[in-house]
């Protein structure tokens, strides 16, 4: 669909190893922003539209650069590699998957004891899985482990690695190329998957008036026996979070986004409350507090080697954010009042 999105999806970077993603974004945005800095934890902060005029609204958009993956614990005498997850991985999807290890990109496959295959009654925990590299050298404890999956089209959808949250990085990068009547700060954050750690630091430094986290989020729109929530659905537009495990969204921002989308005929959906967490969790608690909300592209199978998303939802997310940044999001929020 897009060269930048493809590049971001292919880039490798678990929490603490985001430099490849950061380099892509730096290069992409250097010509489009007024200032570009990297802070002590590794967040890439880009700014534009800074003015001395009093009353200018400072809007922070955040997208995390890190992906879920693993880390090498040690190499066994037989050449196999013990590893642990970095971020939340479902151990059930790991056996048999291709991975790439460390800066030298050593290939490997995840294997599990054959007896575990036979019993099938128990989930084999990550601590009991191994990576087989054929005994390749060049692997050290602490090396990052990433999944291997091509970026490609699947029917009407896009398939690739790390859409959580490279799609957010892509949307943020595209927005930073635009011009909006506010001071716009883009925070490409680190270490979201291990506890929203980069975003809190970024928000403290940026001191925004409002913030929006841009995400790739859970879609659970598989067929089900019972009439249950799909969390989000592909093709129904960007999702807006009201509440998740990390934060309550600012209701004024939710209203701005839903009203903007409706006014411009952009599809939108409310994400199933209570599921997951985003950088908003630490951003909204920075300093004296920051009104914040998360806008996300629904993705099936996040936290696995390959996720699927609808390019139409990506387009709608960019459109929604552009319209909001051109209008109400660029103006100070009014007081929060109870509805009559």
């Amino acid at each position: 669909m897009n060269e930048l999105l493809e590049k971001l999806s292919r880039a490798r970077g678990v929490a603490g190893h985001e430099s490849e993603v950061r380099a892509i974004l730096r290069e992409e945005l250097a010509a489009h922003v007024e200032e570009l800095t990297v802070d002590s934890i590794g967040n890439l902060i880009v700014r534009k539209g800074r003015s001395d005029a009093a009353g200018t609204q400072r809007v922070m958009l955040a997208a995390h650069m890190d992906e879920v993956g693993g880390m090498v614990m040690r190499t066994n005498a037989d050449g196999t590699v013990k590893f642990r997850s970095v971020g939340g991985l479902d151990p059930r999807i790991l056996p048999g998957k291709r991975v790439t290890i460390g800066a030298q990109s050593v290939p490997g496959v995840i294997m599990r004891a054959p007896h575990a295959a036979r019993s099938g009654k128990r989930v084999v925990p990550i601590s009991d899985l191994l990576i087989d590299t054929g005994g390749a050298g060049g692997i050290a404890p602490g090396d990052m482990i990433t999944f291997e999956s091509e970026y490609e089209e699947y029917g009407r959808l896009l398939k690739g690695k790390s859409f959580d949250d490279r799609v957010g990085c892509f949307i943020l990068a595209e927005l930073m190329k635009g011009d909006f009547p506010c001071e716009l700060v883009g925070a490409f954050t680190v270490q979201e998957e291990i506890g929203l750690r980069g975003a809190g630091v970024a928000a403290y430094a940026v001191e925004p008036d409002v913030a929006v986290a841009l995400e790739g989020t859970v879609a659970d729109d598989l067929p089900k026996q019972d009439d249950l929530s799909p969390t989000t659905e592909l093709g129904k537009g960007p999702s807006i979070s009201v509440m998740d495990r990390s934060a309550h969204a600012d209701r004024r921002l939710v209203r701005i986004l839903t009203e903007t989308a409706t006014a411009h005929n952009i599809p939108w959906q409310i994400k199933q409350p209570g599921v997951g967490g985003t950088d908003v969790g630490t951003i909204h608690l920075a300093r004296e507090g920051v009104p914040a909300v998360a806008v996300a592209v629904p993705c099936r199978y996040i936290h696995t080697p390959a996720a699927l998303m609808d390019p139409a939802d990506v387009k709608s997310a960019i459109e929604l954010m552009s319209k909001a940044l051109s209008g109400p999001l660029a103006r100070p929020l009014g007081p929060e009042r109870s509805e009559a």
Partner: protein
Amino acid sequence: MRALIEELCSVFGPSGQEERIREAISSHLDGLVDEVRTDRLGNLIAVKRPTVSGEGGRRIMLAAHIDEIGVMVTHVDAQGFCRFTTLGGVLINSLIGSRVHFANGVQGAFGMEGSPLARERPTLQKLFLDVGAESREGARVQVGDTAVFRSSFGAVGDRLFAANLDDRIGCAVLIETLRELESSPHEILAVFTVQEEVGARGATTAGYGLEPEVILAIDVTATGDFPQATPMEVALGKGVAIKVMDRRMISHPKVRGWLEDTAQAHDIPYQLEVLEYGSTDASAVQVSRAGVPAGTVSIPCRYVHTPSQVADYNDALGAVRLLVNALSGAYPS
């Protein structure tokens, strides 16, 4: 104050949607304080400047949270039944048989999948809300809407019954304290906080913004005075409780000593509280910036985080007396 407690208990205010309860509390602050404002997360901040100058004056933050536990709709099915998630530490076992109210007046009853005769332990996956609808379109609620537990406010003698004494009784104590406090060497920062039940989020940012020198939370605490209760000294009607420790915080010894000394000096009955589960806004402010001496004035309350909570009015009165007397005098040097 009894009428005030009853009034505050009747106002809608789940975590994250505290507009109504904030407005209700705000209306009671007229004339009691020098300044009232709402911060970016929705905390209502009432400032009462020192009326006397003195060595022992401090910037003292008093925090009572205005949010209450509740539920949020996560899915409305084709038949109009709602799936939900909880706001705060709702005890799932207590839901069947209770009633919730939405902001727009819609009521909901809890139902559970399966035969009532073969009931297992309820889980969120098995429970749903019946909002009186017969279709998704007919349901007057949608995903993201919140509801609070409601049963009629009751009183038997001095025992008060309500779904949300946690922490509307603390809010009433704080308002009453501001009313009765005639002179004080302290700058009082009375903060009616939001989102306490989901992790003391409002207190976290208010504590940062206000930079207090002392933090006192005013909240309810559990009791050990009913059959098979978790062993705990605190009992209903035995006086205000002064917190020593809870799940997340050890009270600053000076703050606790100040409260104990005040209670003893004024013959206010009190109990020392060690709470094994739960915490308050004070724990969040305690670690704000470079740290703030923290303590909590607690009102004993049975069945906290269920839709039927019971407290003793006299304990609330004791809390007001303790606070007024403590704040009238100097902070110990």
